[in-house]
């Protein structure tokens, strides 16, 4: 039985949980980024005295076949993943918002955006990614552009539906009826309603973008072989796994998994906060 008035912070407090997840995310982000700045040089420095060492005190995650420190390489790879994710998810959200606004301008615009969305969704995801990265000649920029250009369709659909619902809402029509301008309606009624959707969309795009970046680099498209990206590390580890050098695959993979999970949890928690029925739980 719960006391009638409680001011305690309990674990079923979703807002508190969301805050904790957000803090954990920020902490992880900060650690990875500062770590990559501090360890950057170490990640590519070979040490032939210390080849294929198992995890230990000197090398937390062990070393690879050229004696490079795997911990530094994982952090470096994650940092690249985060940048790609940030830029790609940001660009993707922006494209989705702009296209959603365009689709509400009239029937032909709506049809055009709808066609574009269906076209992109109709193509196999990875094939499209590879094609774009290939066409742009590879490199970090090509990977970012490829991921950004392929991840907006679902969010566009979502935002378009939201927008249509709002501009046809009675309270928006009444606002015009009270003599309010298009600008007022846009900034006071429409955009505040879309911002939560955009934020959640951005957060949920993030893990997708990171996973696809890893997939692209794993397959060898995009980055130069020396550059430590998670996908490159995983691809390199394949040859040594059967020889018992498990740490080469496990640690970068675990890092990727944790990063993706943490952003996915944050996105899902934020989404629940913006859902009226769950907002108070």
């Amino acid at each position, binding site marked *: 039985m719960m006391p009638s008035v409680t001011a305690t912070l309990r674990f079923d407090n979703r807002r508190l949980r969301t805050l904790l997840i957000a803090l954990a995310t920020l902490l992880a982000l900060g650690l990875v980024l500062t770590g990559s700045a501090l360890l950057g040089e170490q990640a590519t420095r070979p040490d032939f005295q210390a080849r294929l060492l198992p995890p230990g005190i000197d090398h937390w995650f062990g070393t690879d076949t050229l004696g490079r420190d795997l911990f530094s390489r994982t952090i470096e790879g994650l940092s690249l993943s985060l940048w790609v994710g940030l830029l790609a998810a940001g660009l993707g959200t922006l494209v989705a918002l702009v296209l959603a606004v365009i689709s509400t301008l009239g029937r032909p615009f709506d049809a055009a955006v709808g066609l574009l969305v269906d076209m992109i969704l109709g193509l196999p995801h990875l094939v499209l990614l590879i094609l774009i990265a290939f066409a742009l000649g590879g490199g970090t920029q090509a990977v970012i552009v490829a991921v950004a250009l392929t991840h907006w369709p679902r969010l566009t659909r979502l935002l378009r539906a939201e927008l249509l619902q709002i501009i046809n*809402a*009675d*309270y928006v029509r009444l*606002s015009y*009826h*009270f003599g*309010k301008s298009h600008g007022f309606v846009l900034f006071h*009624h429409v955009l505040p309603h879309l911002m939560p959707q955009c934020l959640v969309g951005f957060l949920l795009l993030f893990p997708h973008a990171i996973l696809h970046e890893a997939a692209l680099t794993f397959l060898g498209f995009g980055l130069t072989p020396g550059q430590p990206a998670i996908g490159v590390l995983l691809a390199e580890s394949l040859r040594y796994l059967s020889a018992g050098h498990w740490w080469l695959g496990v640690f970068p993979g675990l890092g990727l998994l944790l990063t993706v999970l943490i952003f996915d949890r944050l996105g899902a928690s934020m989404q629940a906060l913006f859902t009226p029925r769950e907002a108070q739980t």
Partner: protein
Amino acid sequence: MLSASALRYCHDRHRDPVIDSVSLRVKAGEIVGLTGDSGAGKSTLGRLLAGLLRPQAGRIELDGTPLPRHGLQPVQLLMQTPELAVNPRWRIERILHEAWTPDTTLLEALSIRRDWYSRFPHELSGGELQRVTVARALAPGVRYLIADEISSMLDALTQAELWHALLQVVASRRMGMLVISHDAALLSRVANRCYRLNAGQLDALA
């Protein structure tokens, strides 16, 4: 005087019009009732008169001139569900002040309390929120009200309270009002005369 002549409106070009050659006049200070079965087009007629829908034929005039295209509309619509007529993310104060800043006398007449100001719409009851939308619609320059089933979601006591307050304000400002309802007892209480909308046609009731 708010006058509509030979209005015609169809939702869909391939179907029969919902409103066909309907003419109607509401004088200042007069309260006119409108009844009819569901689907007869009562709400459509209300939206046409308020200027929220444009008729495909016919004219709506206020004292001989068409309704203005921009700015505050002199004919305002009050809706059945106040929850849909307000932005769910706005606080009551902002909602109340969207069209104008209502004076204390009006707020008192409609028993709108200051302590609602910081609340959100879902934290008020239907009757309370309906009074807020009524106050919002009574901006200076508004001369006619279309009340579309505004009390059909309310219990009898809240309904009586709302109507007594609204009738008092409307009478003191000499506004005209069209009351849409399928409750004959209510219309006989509030309206001076009544129409019935049937298959897109308007008949005067005794």
